[in-house]
């Protein structure tokens, strides 16, 4: 029996395949297996030999079972390892790429702008694009014949209606909608129209962002503080601003706001005409008559307003040198604004 045990264990050790192991299992432990057969002979032995023989056969059977189990596990692992060895992909092949979309740079820029102004307690008010002469001009202190009307070559729809030349009528409409509540603090982003043929820096259709703050105790210093925060948020924390006196009939005092050149950081380059400054925004303290036209009492409240070109801001931010590409929608342009 010891010989037999040795033989069986050797055969298990030498088995190469899982199928071979199965055959060995049948051969020794199956119903007609040799070990099974040995156990069957127990009954025919003399009574006193039976327990000793039985225990011996059972011990042998357990050893064989254990070995079979171990060998099976080892062969399975080898088979798996072999399978994994076979499974190789060329990782340099491109992945299954998802379709990626993109926001237009104007929307990307506007979102940043809106985010910055949200942080300062502004909301977004969208005003209409077709306007009355009254709202676009008269309520903003631009009476008929005012020379400043010429600077904004207007696209009229009828004698009294037009396509807004700036987002400023949104100041009046927004104030009226606020019905005297304080504080007034909103921006008006939107499309504006001028009678300018398309070229690298002009378009009959472009976009502005207007801002208006009306409250008690609002001064020129707040205008400066608010715009500085915006400029640093949008163009970067080391951005500086410069206010120069200017003229808009709906603000007094009025200012032109320059930001330090986004390209040369104020050192002077081609883009800023070597001045280190880029003209960005018109601004000023809300004119008392405009405050009154919005339904507020200029003796009680003061305020400031500003407005700048969204297209220009986006162009400066990303170094786009021709306005036309914004409206051509060439895929080779749009795909550049994929991403987060």
């Amino acid at each position, binding site marked *: 029996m010891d010989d037999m045990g040795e033989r069986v264990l050797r055969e298990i050790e030498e088995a190469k395949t899982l199928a071979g192991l199965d055959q060995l299992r049948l051969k020794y432990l199956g119903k007609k297996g040799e070990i099974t057969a040995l156990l069957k002979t127990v009954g025919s032995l003399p009574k006193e030999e039976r327990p000793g023989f039985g225990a011996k056969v059972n011990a042998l059977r357990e050893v064989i079972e254990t070995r079979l189990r171990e060998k099976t596990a080892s062969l399975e692992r080898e088979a798996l390892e072999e399978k994994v060895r076979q499974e190789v992909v060329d990782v340099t*092949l*491109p992945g*299954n790429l*998802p*379709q990626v*979309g993109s*926001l237009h740079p*104007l929307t990307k820029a506007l979102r940043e702008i809106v985010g910055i102004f949200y942080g300062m*307690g*502004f*909301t*977004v*008010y*969208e005003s*209409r694009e*077709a*306007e009355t002469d009254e709202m676009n001009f008269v309520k903003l202190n631009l009476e008929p*014949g005012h*020379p*400043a009307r010429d600077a904004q070559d207007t*696209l009229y*729809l*009828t*004698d009294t*209606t037009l*396509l807004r030349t700036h987002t400023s009528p949104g100041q009046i409409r*927004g104030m009226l909608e*606020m019905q005297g509540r304080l*504080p*007034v*603090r909103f*921006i008006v982003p939107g*499309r504006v129209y001028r009678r300018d043929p398309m070229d690298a820096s002009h378009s*009959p*259709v472009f976009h502005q962002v207007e801002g208006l703050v009306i*409250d008690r*105790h609002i*001064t*020129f*210093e*707040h205008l*400066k503080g*608010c715009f500085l925060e915006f400029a640093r948020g949008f163009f970067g924390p080391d951005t500086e601003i*410069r*206010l*120069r*006196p*200017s*003229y808009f009939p709906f603000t*007094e*005092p*009025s200012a032109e706001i320059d930001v330090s050149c986004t390209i040369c950081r104020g050192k002077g380059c081609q883009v800023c005409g070597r001045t280190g400054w880029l003209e960005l925004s018109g601004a000023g*303290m809300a*004119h*008392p008559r405009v405050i009154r036209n919005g339904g507020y009492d200029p003796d009680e409240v003061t305020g400031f307003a500003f407005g700048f070109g969204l297209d220009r801001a986006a162009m400066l931010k990303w170094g786009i040198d021709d306005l036309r590409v914004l409206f051509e*929608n*060439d*895929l*080779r342009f749009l*795909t550049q604004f994929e991403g987060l």
Partner: protein
Amino acid sequence: MKVPWKWLNEYVDLDWTVEETCERLTLLGVKVENLTLEKLDLSGVVSALVEDVSPHPSRPHLKVGTLNTGSRRYTVVSGAPGLVEGNIVLLAAPSSRIPGGTTIETRTFAGVESQGMVVCANEILAGEEPRSGEDIIILPPGTPLGLSAQDILDLDDWVMELDLTVNYSHCLSIMGVAIEASALSGKPLKLPDVFRKWDWAGPLGSRRPPDDPDEAGEWKVELPDPDLCPRYVGKVVRGVRPGYAPVEVERRLMLAGMRPISAIVDVTNYVMLETGQPLHAFDLDKLEGKVISARRARRGEVIETLDGEERQLEEGMLVIADALGPVAVAGVMGGARTEVSMETKNILLESAFFAPIPTRKTYRKLRLRTEASARFEKTVDPTAQPVAIERAAELIARYTGGIPEVGRTDANVMEPVRKSISFSTRVVRRTLGAPISAGKCREIFEDLHFAPGPVRKEGDFETMEVTVPPRRVDIEEEIDLCEEIARFYGYHRFEPKPLTPATPGGPPNKEYVWFDRMKDFLVAMGGREVVTTSLLAPDDLLAMGWDASDTRSTGVPLMDPLSSSESILRTSLLPGLLKVVSRNQSVRMPGGFFWETGRVFFPSTEELPLEALQLGLVMYGALKEGSWVEGESEATFFRLKGVTETLLRLMGCDASFLPGASMPFHPGISARVVAGHSTVGELGELHPLVKKNLNLTGKCALAWFSVEAILAMAREKRFSPISKFMPVERDIAVVVQAGVPAGAVVKIVKETARDLHSVTVFDVYDKPPIPEGKKSIALRLTYSPTDRTLTEEDLSLDRERIVKALRDGVGGEIRL
């Protein structure tokens, strides 16, 4: 407005550098857009004494001169009258240069060699031949010899080009800019005598000096239209000698951007640039009668202007007329008939106030914007007409030897107005914030030649009456004075102050948030946002195939469009989006998915057109090109439908797709999207006819939605508990007539089944063994009961109910 640096410094001694001055003026609101150094190339041109003159041996009109530069003698041939023994002239010797890139060479005139030439003003200023009657430049006696022309004439200068806002009309003159510079620098204003005598800069404007003679001018002036011309001053100068202004005057005009003409015309321009008051000179002997009338033009009147153009005048335009008719378009340009010429002996100078708006209308109609009209349209100082004419008469007398009449004709119906504005430091504190004292304010007003009255204490603030000079037409009320304080205090000196935190201060904008979410989803779906113009051509709408009954077929027209291709407002985003497809196909992009949000416009019975916010989507070609791992994805109806129905679902909008949309959609491959009882959008493949019209190729699917309608339906999510029981799936296939929409089948299943979580169509099949004219729709039902585990019995009962409902509802037979 161009300001030559030396000219400016004649009125105020600035000790800043020119660059520093530009910077400071810019920060004052007088924006210097350009600074250029204007140099004349005159190398080698030097002063020389005419030592000897003899006639040319064979040419009687020429002379031969011997010129001494102190170091050398030159022989020069010239016909100039100024080539006279003893004169000091400018010699351009061989190899010297004059402007225009000309290098002087030795030339031979009928056998006599000329070593260079003696030069006239036109040669050294413009590099051009002498003008008719122009003599060479004769330098003052005693001028050192051999000195370079540059050093003697001092003609090189910096020119500051100002970019002025419309309210800065007071800076449309060199003296006006000088006042600003003087107030800013604290350096005194140094005006020529005549301006000081008349107190041109003073708070009340120009006033007749005590010694001004009472004589009235010899010409009568009528002002029948005082609304257009309330003041007209005339002055006669007799015995003028024709000729040109001195070279330094011509140079200044050129630096300021004007062309020298003749001494008289140049003086009128010079004084205009100096004071801001435009002037005109008539040839007195060409005027008919003895009366000048500033009146409205009459029907059919015509004038030939100085530029040689014959101009049809419209009734209502202001003209200056003599007995024969118009001699000038008032404030715009003089007439040819009375033009001063080289034969002119006597002149009538004009210095008037023309009303701004009519002047602008006139020059626009005539398309004739001039330096004069640019000043009148912004309102000139109403008091400066006499002093400007006196200044001009003085200079004309100096340069032409003419004798001005004593006194002048001054027709004036304007009431003298003392502009007095009450000013309080309260406005400074409220508007500017910074604590600027009443004393500092007074100082600024005085520096600007305003007249601030005594300071009175009023509560916490101080007030004063400020008299503002009439030349400052931009200052009308207290807030305007406040701006002057801010400008001269310095915008840079105000501290930036943050807005104090507060509740958001605008109209509510919940919808804007949803709008952004919608955009984010479209980006996630691979859509590319585009921005197209709102201005279209009528043809763009025509190409869409809308018939006249469609509200989209006619856009709101512009009154005066730039071009017909930008003459109406868009009624839909689709034409613009199809142009994007066209553009990208033309640059060989194989496919794309674009979307845009924007306003569309419709005619309305209200004053303003109706504006609606739309979302437009378009896909064409291969959205994603095939790769080694996956085939290409094409722009089909169902691909776009998948995106849009998911969008609607995620926004929480309950909408259904009904077959068949209008143009420009393919009638059989399109759907109307309906919510409630209204169409909120349309979706489909592009109609082949439209595709052909627009020269597009390949697959193209597009859609539009009313953003307002979608946003109105948008709902925030509510959580619903997750079932503790396992979901169960069952498939069912039903055979129906080919024309039965799958939507109807799904609808019946949804309405009938119990505990149903979802139902999806996973196959549609119409080949054998399915009978001709029928189709099989295979559905997968997912049950998700919340209160129990479904038994086989529950499921087979539900199946029976569904089978019956499908048979009754759409005549469906079950396949499995």
